[in-house]
């Protein structure tokens, strides 16, 4: 993978392939689907990492040494709420998207 990403940086020679061939590795704007977003009560978090494991989109990162120890990539988070539902400390809330709560 690393190899592929490095190669991306350099100029690749392109050639035509006939028929149905996928040629680019892309992502849809799934972050725009979100109706609710996860919000962590950091004081209660035990950094167990379950939220990261069960996230279908794989966009949760645990930063053990930081105060805000759970980071979401909201570019892709669909707001499904599995992280909140599975959190053993129940310290992830689902709050309406674009709310200030």
């Amino acid at each position, binding site marked *: 993978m690393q190899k592929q990403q490095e190669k991306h940086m350099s100029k690749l020679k392109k050639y035509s*392939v*006939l*028929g*149905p*061939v*996928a*040629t680019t590795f892309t992502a849809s704007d799934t972050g725009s689907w979100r109706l609710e977003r996860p919000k962590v009560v950091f004081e209660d978090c035990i950094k167990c990492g379950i939220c990261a494991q069960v996230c279908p989109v794989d966009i949760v990162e645990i930063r053990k040494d930081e105060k805000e120890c759970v980071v979401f990539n909201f570019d892709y988070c669909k707001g499904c709420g599995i992280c909140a539902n599975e959190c053993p400390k129940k310290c992830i809330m689902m709050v309406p998207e674009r709310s200030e709560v």
Partner: protein
Amino acid sequence: MAYKMLNGNTAAAEAMKLAKVQVVSVYPITPQSPMSERLADMVASGEMKAEYIRVESEHSAMSMTMTAQLTGVRAGTATSSNGLALMHEVLSMVSGTRAPVVMPVVNRGVAAPWTLWCEHGDSMAQRDMGWLQFYSENVQEVLDLMLVAYRVAEDERVLTPAMVCLDGFFLSHSMQKVDVPEEELVDDFVGPYIRKNGYLDTKDPMFLCGLCGPEDYTEMRYQQKVGMDNASKVAQEVLEEFEAKFGRKLEIVEGYKTEDADVVLVALGSMCGTAKYVVNKMRAEGKKVGVAKVTMFRPFPVDQLRKVLAGKEVIGVFDRSAGLGGQGGPVWSETCAALKDQSSDIRHYVGGLGGRDVTIDNIEKIFNELLEIKEGRRDKHTQWIDLKDNPMEIRQVIKNV
């Protein structure tokens, strides 16, 4: 060169061996079964270095051949009749993904009624699936056209799979003396398989055959059309090279004594041999008749056929398939469209269905009808040339309710 006694099935298997096919997935069906067996024998004995997969259906046979070829090896399968019909769905996957598979098809009618015997209805039903189609006149042609088909199909201007059709039993089970070329000569002609388009390789990943929207679908079909268009020209080049290398002349459309002929019959496959015999017989009686043998049916050889049939006022076309619901059979329809700028009287004949022999008598009858039409002595022709007198009353049942 060495002569061997081969039938159509073993000749096709021999060609696959000579082309160094590396994956064989094949499902037995009459009259192709001896080919499956021969391939299995050759792989088992080590005569052929290939993976032999004893599949559970023709659908899987075609599927495996397709993905094996896309993984970068020459792969092969073969089928007939209902087996070809079962492959239908995968045939267009193969052509659409531009996998240049070459497949012998032993022509047999499709059920119902069940038949084991020859007609072209099975391969004609697949004529729009994006495959090249060759039809063999004799066993030598089966072997030769197989080798030619690899070259044409795999050419980067074509990249289109090919069927090499051979008439069930008439060719598949008929032993003939065949000139089998030396391995080195074939190696030089066919060459090793080189992937020229998309492929499945973890070192160079790409996803093949994903969902395609209306924004690109038309262009991909057009790419196939270009491949088909190129196939005619490429086939011409390959046939010339074949003749130079192996000393046998094959033509996309062969005009047999057509030049000075008053009437010409267009035909495909093994019946061409019979038709040529009839031509000679009738010419001895002073009747100037000729045969146009269509060797390559897909892409349809419009230019070549026009050339052979130029100026002919009365033409007969023999379809060895019923073409139900159409204005005529597929060969007739194509011929009419090819000659639309020429005011020919093109008569449609159907016969030789479900194993009925296309006899000398019937071909002679066709030629005589065409000659009478040409001379203005006849109006109607006998479209179903070998039909019994009482077609609607051949079976009677005692009703109990």
